[in-house]
């Protein structure tokens, strides 16, 4: 394997960086916010951002799922759950936990260290691009008539697996809908909103 691939700063990489920056910003804002509606809207925006990021990584099918589930259904489900509970999260008493912080930092630095050994981003000689994946790309047009390789793998090569997965997800979805009371005209009964924290906050 010749390793003459040199990663460069292309516009796409810059785009990825700006998307990731926005993702981190949204994530921290969601953590800081105690206003649940804001968190639900921001999580929808987070899904849109990460879906755009998946597209730039060429994971189009994941982006499809992320858009449909993350930005569509799940923000609606979160709002449904929110209507059954209070609009505000209880204020968290922040007690410092030095041991936990140390563990997080240790694991994080080990993971950072591990990334050094990973193939460069976009390297055509990375193991993921040269081993069995290539086999599927070559054989799918002859073996299965479906032109999209991802669809062929999902629906044919591992069709039963996909069937099981969709059944699990469907069951979970039905259970959530039942819990939220989406079938009744009135819907779930809202719990009286108990204002917590500063009432002059305006939210």
């Amino acid at each position, binding site marked *: 394997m010749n390793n003459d691939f040199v990663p460069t700063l292309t516009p796409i990489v810059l785009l990825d960086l700006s998307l990731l920056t926005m993702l981190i910003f949204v994530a921290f804002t969601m953590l800081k916010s105690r206003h649940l509606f804001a968190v639900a809207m921001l999580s929808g925006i987070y899904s849109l*951002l990460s879906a755009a990021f998946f597209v730039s990584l060429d994971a189009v099918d994941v982006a*499809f799922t992320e858009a449909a589930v993350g930005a569509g259904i799940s923000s609606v489900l979160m709002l449904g759950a929110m209507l059954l509970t209070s*609009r505000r999260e209880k204020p968290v008493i922040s007690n410092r936990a030095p041991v936990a912080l140390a563990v997080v930092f240790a694991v994080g630095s080990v993971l950072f260290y591990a990334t050094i050994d990973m193939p460069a981003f976009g390297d055509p000689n990375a193991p993921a691009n040269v081993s069995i994946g290539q086999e599927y790309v070559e054989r799918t047009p002859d073996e299965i008539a479906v032109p999209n390789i991802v669809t062929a793998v999902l629906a044919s090569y591992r069709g039963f697996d996909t069937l099981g997965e969709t059944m699990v997800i469907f069951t979970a979805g039905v259970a959530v809908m039942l819990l939220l009371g989406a079938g009744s005209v009135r819907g779930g009964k809202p719990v009286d909103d108990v204002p917590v924290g500063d009432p002059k906050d*305006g*939210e």
Partner: protein
Amino acid sequence: MFGAATAAIVIAMALALIRACAGPSLYDRVLAGNSFGTKTVLLLGSMGFLSGRPDFLDIALLYALINFVGTIAILKFFRYRTFAVSMDGAAAVKPVFGEGDRQ
């Protein structure tokens, strides 16, 4: 030239993000989310052209639809507190507002 368009869209997304975080009212956030969705659609399009393969426009198409349906669903949920369709028309279900909805 796609780079210029993409840069403009990304900056605009960041600005919409500021509005979504700042609020202050619920409707500001929904508006910012909707606007962010429109910009994501544009970004997906220009990203396809930027990488030289504009074959992924189907996703932009899907986003345009999901964004619209999602916005309407959120607003409907907030107005009627349910997704169920009343057989006598929507007017039969009286809108219910909580204290928090006004702001």
